[in-house]
Structure formats: structure tokens, C-alpha cells
């Protein structure tokens, strides 16, 4: 092709800049995309860069088409699809690399850069961290610089110039971005189906509790949610975050049954409420953690019979919500017979020793709350140990084995055993799972609740008092806790901050605060937060938002227009002093009716003046010859320059 020969060194430079910008934009995909995609991409880019440097002709049309088909085919074979997050991003990266072999025209280059912008947005599907955003801004800066360079087809701009222009464009776009971000009316997504996240399923509390499930969570330090209290935070021993309530027991596993949820919470009015804000990470289920017993939640939230708060759809991305809870509550003073039956059911005649124990207590005249307290003390007085690696329980009478045999376990074992004891005593009881405590971050005054804070406790129903919380795990004294790291339940009572002191911990808490602010104010900014935020400024609906948005944008652009106009104000005088003096001389003559024609050189002009007005000839000739000397013969003589300026200053041109 002839274009290959026509590829000048100039366009080569700008193409290499483009390739560099693209590489920067692609680089973070190394973290998420399969290695073969990145290796192929790197190979194509290196090949193309070499071809550019060595002035080899670009790849032919047929070969390019073949490679495109190959890329499509491989992506389809690898992922079984060509859309979706990973497959789509892989395809985009490969196609962009191939597009580099076809940078013949201004149009090709521009389109490639547009796709590079699109590549940036695909990164955000994988990570929305602060670091990634800063990196993406950097990449956008380079891509824009390359776009500026491409819009100057007669040769590459100096790199500094294109980078400066790019920085100016993006910098001036930042206020518009902020306006659009805050005011552009958001609608609740998704617009079409979201692919199931294909990473490991998010961990969290499940719908059932077998002895191992909580132990697994206890070793998982990832964050579940962060909480900010509006007033004074409740003390640690009252921070029970309610999760699934497990009512069905088959002798080994406690199970939570999906329940019908209503829009009204089970407790509607209370004297004292605690208000707080939660930033919940994606969980892929509908449960919204709430303190103690939720009384009010976010819009569209609903509540189950057991006091669980649910979102209207699974939480697939980080959300922010406000809720209110009652810490001191009475609920379900009257238990309906079906629930009562359910919360008393045990699978057959198991655990004979436990039955005997309960009968002993009853023989002492204990019942209701006093019997429950006696059971709690039992865990304290007998040599029960808290451990995350308890011996496995086998056989049918698991509670007997635990209470009279191993006596080692964690919250799941204690809550389960306690609930069984209560049911044996004829008290309706159930296991509640959730989270307990949470780490306080002084920066920003909020609490971090992690998977390792997962916990299980019991609720028993007492006539006239409703459901009461009992946490048997909390009865184990710290001396009998056999774990080093901060586990759920008993271990929680040791202040975590004291255990892991030091600089790094405080740094990581600072950093967590920055991340939390980022997540609260930016990542969680969706339809709900937007309407809550903007209602405060008197913009309750999308019409008023759009109106305000338009107003602010037009105002900003008008201001920018004025500034840009001012930037290009005539400033001939900013040139060098000699040019300035010459301009002055010409202006003076122009006022005499002898303007210099635009195409007239100084010599021609001088001759014309001399012939038109011989009286001026001498002075004019002197000035002109000085000017020509200074300007065209490069006589860089300060003395001559001063003389020239002096003569121009003296020149009046009034001799007629």
C-alpha cells in the first residue's frame, strides 16, 4: 500500500503516543482477565509497535479479518459467550489491539481512542477503589492528550502541549462532571439482566446453621457493613445485629424458613429509638442487617415475622441505607399457636441426659426466666471452653455429647444447646444468627462489622414479656477462650484494638475511614441517596433536578466562555519591544492617513511614505533602516534597539 510509504516520521510519533496511552488504559485488565487474553494483546501491540518503529507496512486486510474472527472464536470458546463482563472486556481488549494495525486515517485513530475511553469504564465493573479511579483519571488524561494530538493532523504536537491541553480540558470538565454526578436524575437499575457474579459466592450468614458454618465465617476478615450512629453509639454488649432467625431443628442443623414479609415492622412504636446509617457490601441476598430489632428501614424495605429486615431485591452492589431500631423492646406478647408449636418442636426423644438436667432444674421449682438464667449459669460454672476447632460431634444425641462430653465449641454450639434446653423445658425458643459488636474507628466515628463478627444467640418467649434475648456464649469467661484472633462470641469481649495495637493498625483504620467516606458519598450515590440529598436543597423530583442541572451547566459554560475569550484578547504589545515600537510607528502613520497595507514590507512602506510626504522621508527612512537592521539582519544590538525606540517615540509625523 502506498500509505505505508507516506507514513512520515511525524505521524509515527503520534501513533506511538496513541499506543502508549492505550497500553496504560489496558494495563489494569491484567488483574481480571485470563492470561491468554493479555498475552495475545501484548503480542499484537508489540508487533504493531515494532512495525511502526521499523516502518514496516501495516497488516493486510485479509490477515486482520482472520485475526478478528480468531479473537471472536477464542473468546466464545473460552467463555461460552461474547457479552458479559469478562467475555466482553476480553473481546474489547483484543479488538482494540487489532485496531492498532489499522491506523490509516484521522478517523481510525479517533475511533480507537473512543474505544479506549470505553475500555476505562469496563475497568470499573471490576474495581471501584480509590486507587483505580486515580489511575483511570491518569489514563483518561493520556488518552485525551493523544486525541488532541490526533486532531492536529499536520504533524505531532509537542508532547508538553498536548498533555497541557488535555489537562486543561479535563480540569475544566471536572466542575461539569460534579454537577452532572450530583444532579443528573438517577433511576434504579438494572435496566436489563445482570450477569451473576462469577467470582466466589459472597460469604455471609446462610439460611441454616450447621456447626461448621459460623467457624468458617469467623476466619473471614472481609467487611460486611459499616455503621455510623446518629447519636451516641450503644455499648458493645448491646450491639447485636439481627440476621436470619432459625426455628427448625433436625437434630444436627438449625434451618431458617423463608417467611412472608410485610411493609410494617413487628414493633411500630417505641419510646427510645437508635438511628443509624449502614453501608452494606454486596451480599447477593435481600437481608439488611439491623441493630437489635428494626423499627424503620429504608424505602421499599419489608419486615418478617421474626424481625428480619429485607430489601426489595438482592443486594448485588454496595448500598447505603438508614434505619432505626429499638434496643429495649417487647414484641409478640401474644404468640400465635402455630408459631408456639414450631418453636417447641424437637426431633423425637433425643438427648436423654439433657432432658434429665432440665427436669432436675424444674424439680427445684425453676421455670420461665429463672430457668433460663439457671441454664446460662450452667455454661459459666461448668468447664465449657470456647474454641473454633471443637471436636466433631457424632451420633444422634449431639446436644448431650456437647453438654456432658466435649464441652468445647463456639457460639453456634452454645446457642443451639441452650435453645434445645429451653424447648425441653417447654419454653418456646429459637436461634438467632447475626453479627455482634464491630470494630470502632475513631476517624469518622463509625463501626466496621466483618464476617468474623458473625454470631449466634437465642431468643426465648415468656408469657407477658414476649421474646427475650439470651446469649449463652457470653457466659464463657475469657480464661476459657482458646483462640488467639478475635473470634465471634466470647472472644469478642476482649477489646480488639488493644490486641492489635500499633502504627499499622491505626494507619489501616485511617485508610478504612477514607474508603468509607468514598463509599458513602460517591459509590453509594444512587437514586435513594440522591433524592434524600437533593430534597434538602429543595430539589425533590427529576424535573427540578434537570432544571437546576441545566442552569448550573449553562452558567458554568458561560463563565468558561468569558475566561477563554479573555485569554485570546489582542496582545500585540506582548511581543518583543521592537515589534511593539514598530506597531506604534505604523499606528501613528495610519492616523495620518497612511496605513501600512498588510502585505507591505517595511522597505516598501517606507518608500511609499517618503514619496507621499517628502517631509517625513528622512525620519521615516532612519526608522525603517533601523527596524530592518534589527529585525531582518539580526543586529541584536541593545544600543540600536534603544535608538530605534527613541526615534519612534519622537516621531510625530505632523510635518506637512
Amino acid at each position, binding site marked *: 500500500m502506498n500509505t505505508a510509504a507516506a507514513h512520515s516520521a511525524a505521524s509515527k510519533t503520534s501513533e506511538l503516543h496513541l499506543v502508549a496511552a492505550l497500553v496504560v488504559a489496558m494495563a489494569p485488565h491484567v488483574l481480571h482477565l485470563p492470561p491468554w487474553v493479555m498475552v495475545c494483546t501484548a503480542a499484537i501491540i508489540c508487533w504493531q509497535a515494532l512495525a511502526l518503529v521499523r516502518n514496516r507496512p501495516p497488516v493486510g486486510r485479509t490477515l486482520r479479518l482472520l485475526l478478528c474472527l480468531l479473537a471472536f472464536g477464542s473468546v466464545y470458546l473460552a467463555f461460552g459467550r461474547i457479552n458479559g463482563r469478562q467475555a466482553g472486556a476480553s473481546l474489547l481488549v483484543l479488538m482494540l489491539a487489532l485496531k492498532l494495525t489499522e491506523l490509516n486515517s*484521522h*478517523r481510525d485513530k*479517533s*475511533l480507537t481512542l473512543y474505544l479506549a*475511553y*470505553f475500555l*476505562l*469504564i469496563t475497568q*470499573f*465493573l471490576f474495581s*471501584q477503589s480509590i486507587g*483505580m*479511579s486515580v489511575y483511570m483519571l491518569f489514563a*483518561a488524561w493520556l488518552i485525551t492528550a493523544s*486525541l*488532541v494530538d490526533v*486532531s*492536529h*493532523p*499536520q504533524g505531532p*504536537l509537542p508532547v508538553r502541549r498536548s498533555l497541557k*491541553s488535555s489537562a486543561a*480540558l479535563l480540569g*475544566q*470538565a*471536572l*466542575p*461539569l*462532571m460534579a454537577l*452532572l*454526578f450530583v444532579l443528573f436524575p*438517577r*433511576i*434504579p*437499575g*438494572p*435496566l*436489563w439482566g*445482570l450477569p451473576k457474579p462469577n467470582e466466589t459466592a459472597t460469604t455471609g450468614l446462610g439460611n441454616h446453621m450447621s456447626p461448621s458454618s459460623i467457624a468458617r465465617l469467623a476466619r473471614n476478615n472481609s467487611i460486611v457493613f459499616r455503621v455510623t450512629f446518629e447519636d451516641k453509639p450503644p455499648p458493645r454488649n448491646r450491639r447485636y445485629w439481627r440476621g436470619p432467625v432459625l426455628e427448625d431443628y433436625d437434630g444436627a442443623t438449625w434451618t431458617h424458613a423463608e417467611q412472608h414479609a410485610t411493609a410494617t415492622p413487628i414493633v411500630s412504636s417505641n419510646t427510645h429509638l437508635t438511628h443509624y446509617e449502614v453501608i452494606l457490601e454486596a451480599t447477593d441476598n435481600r437481608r439488611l442487617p439491623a441493630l437489635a430489632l428494626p423499627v424503620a428501614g429504608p424505602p421499599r424495605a419489608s419486615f418478617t415475622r421474626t424481625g428480619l429486615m429485607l430489601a426489595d431485591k438482592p443486594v448485588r*452492589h454496595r448500598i447505603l441505607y438508614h434505619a432505626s431500631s429499638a434496643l429495649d423492646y417487647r414484641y409478640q406478647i401474644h404468640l400465635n399457636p402455630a408459631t408456639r408449636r414450631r418453636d417447641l418442636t424437637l426431633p423425637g426423644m433425643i438427648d436423654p441426659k439433657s432432658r434429665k438436667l432440665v427436669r432436675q432444674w424444674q424439680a427445684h421449682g425453676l421455670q420461665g426466666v429463672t430457668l433460663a438464667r439457671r441454664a446460662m449459669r450452667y455454661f459459666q460454672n461448668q468447664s465449657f471452653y470456647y474454641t473454633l476447632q471443637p471436636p466433631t460431634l457424632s451420633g444422634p444425641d449431639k446436644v448431650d455429647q456437647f453438654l456432658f462430653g466435649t464441652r468445647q465449641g463456639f457460639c453456634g454450639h452454645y446457642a443451639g444447646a441452650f435453645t434445645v434446653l429451653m424447648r425441653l423445658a417447654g419454653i418456646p425458643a429459637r436461634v438467632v444468627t447475626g453479627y455482634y459488636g464491630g470494630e470502632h474507628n475513631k476517624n469518622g466515628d463509625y463501626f466496621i462489622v466483618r464476617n468474623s463478627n458473625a454470631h449466634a444467640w437465642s431468643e426465648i418467649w415468656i408469657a407477658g414479656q414476649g421474646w427475650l434475648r439470651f446469649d449463652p456464649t457470653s457466659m464463657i469467661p475469657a480464661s476459657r477462650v482458646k483462640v488467639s484472633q478475635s473470634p465471634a462470641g466470647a472472644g469478642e469481649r476482649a477489646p480488639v484494638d488493644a490486641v492489635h495495637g500499633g502504627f499499622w493498625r491505626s494507619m489501616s483504620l485511617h485508610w478504612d475511614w477514607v474508603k468509607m467516606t468514598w463509599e458513602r458519598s*460517591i*459509590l453509594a*450515590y*444512587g437514586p435513594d441517596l440522591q433524592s434524600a440529598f437533593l430534597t434538602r436543597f429543595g430539589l425533590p423530583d427529576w424535573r427540578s433536578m434537570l432544571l437546576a442541572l441545566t442552569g448550573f*451547566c449553562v452558567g458554568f*459554560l458561560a463563565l*468558561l*466562555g468569558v475566561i*477563554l*475569550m479573555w*485569554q*485570546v*484578547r*489582542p*496582545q*500585540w504589545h506582548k*511581543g518583543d519591544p521592537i*515589534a511593539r515600537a514598530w506597531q506604534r510607528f505604523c499606528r501613528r502613520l495610519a492616523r495620518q492617513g497612511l496605513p501600512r497595507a*498588510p*502585505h507591505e514590507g517595511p522597505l516598501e512602506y517606507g518608500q511609499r511614505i517618503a514619496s507621499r510626504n517628502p517631509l517625513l522621508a528622512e525620519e521615516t527612512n532612519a526608522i525603517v533602516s533601523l527596524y530592518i537592521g534589527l529585525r531582518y539582519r539580526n543586529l541584536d544590538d541593545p544600543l540600536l534597539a534603544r535608538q530605534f525606540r527613541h526615534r519612534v517615540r519622537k516621531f510625530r509625523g505632523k510635518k506637512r
Partner: protein
Amino acid sequence: MLPTRLGMVFALLLLVMLLGSMNYSNSLGFMLTFLLAGMALVGMHHTHRNLLRLQVDSGHMHRVFAGETAVYEIRISNPSTSPRFSLQLAQTGSGLTDIGETDTRSLILASGRTVRGLNPAPRFKITSTYPLGLFQAWSWVELDMNCLAYPRPQGGKNVSFSQPAIGEGKRSHRGGNEDFSGLREYQRGDSPRLVHWRAAARTGELLVKQFTDMEDPEHWLDWEQFAGLSTEARLSRLCQCVLDSHRDGIRFGLKLPGKSIVPARGEHHRQQCLEALARFQAPADAGQSGPS
């Protein structure tokens, strides 16, 4: 200010990005989309600024022969301290230029075939899509400027002069040694044949031989020589004669109805004669004197 076709593609891209961000409720996706939208709007202003306050003047009048493309010199001055990039005259399709701070550049506007005489410049457009290529700004300019078209040269190779000058001139031109009157300084346009090369070798200065008798025999190119032709044909033949005579270094004069140029020699003279031909206005009766 209108978006370019690439600008439309960019808008489509932004729309896709917006829909994607909505679907995934991706805050940073929104941010990037809005950043790029803001950048496009800001870029529109920058494109406008790229043309703002430019001063456009006419440059030298270009001279061509009739039938050639009209050429105009456009001088664009940037009075500000912000350099301007990639300015283009819309009609020509090429000629992108940058103008540095407080600088002036000339661009050539080419447009249409000329006819003899003055060809006024058309209205033209200065455009720019810099810095992003998403929007095009333009400014219509109408300048009072002309391209002068000489008659199209036409006719035989031999110069024919009107009587009585021809014979005498031819004879004495070649062998007029005795009529040699002296040397004068070389001027642009003098024929190399008249240069006194020996003197030049000696003194290092170019001197031209002058012949006294050549001053007097008047070689006239005369309108009446080509009687019977149409006005344009006559002018074309005269034009050819002027060019040939100049090439041969002959001293000649030009006679047109209502105007005559005394015999002389040199570039300036040639231009004067051609300009007279170009600007010639046929008298009402002289125009169609012959069959055409």
C-alpha cells in the same frame, strides 16, 4: 458550531456508557461518562476560542493566466498570546496551519477557473476542529480581494512587431556593435544574452550591454496587428507576444486602444504590459470587429 461526524459517534459512545452505568449502578462509570461529557462541552468552547479574534486580511494579489485556478493569499493574524492550531480554509480541503502567539500566517485559497481581468474572491470559511475533533467551528469571511488573470497566451511562436520597427530592429539587434553605447547595472528581467560576461568575470558585477540604436527603433506590439480577431483572441495573441519578447530580451512597447506603454525591458515592464492586457476594457465598437 456543529458536532462533526466523529462527534456524533462520540455522543453515541457516551450514551452507551450512560446506559451501562445505569444498568450496573456503577458510580464511577457515571463519573467517567460525565467527565467525558463535560470534556466534550469544554472542548466545544476551546474549538470556538481557536477561531476567536483572529484577524483576516487579504495578502498580495496573485496573478495567473485566464483559465487557471484563481489563487488568493489570505493572511490570518493571531493578536493574542494563545497559539492557534489546525486552522483550515474550508474550500481548499488542505492547508492546515498553526499560528503562534502574536503571529501571522498566509494561507492560499484556491477557487474556480479564472476569466481575464479581476476575479473577486468568493466568500470562504475558516474552520477548525481542534482540540478534540468533536465539534467544528467556522467563520465566514468575505474579503474585498481579487485575483488578476492575464489573457491566456495564444498564437504563433514568432513575435511579429508592427511596422516600421520590425526590420530595423532585427537587423541591428544581432550585429549592432558600433551602436554599443555602454554598460549599465543588471536589473531583474534582463535577458542573459545582453549580459556582458567578460566584464562580469573581471569585475564580479553583472553588467548589461546597452545599444543606443536599440533605444530608438520602436518595437511595438499593437492591438491593430490582430485586426479581424475577437477582443479576447487579440489580447491572447498580444499576451503571447509580450511573453516571447520578454523571453528574448527585446525592448518593446505595447499599444492598446486608449493606452500605450512606451518600449522598455525587464520584469517590471513585462508585468505592466500584462496587467494592461488583463485590465483592458474593449471600447464599445472595437469589441466584435472581426469574425469570431
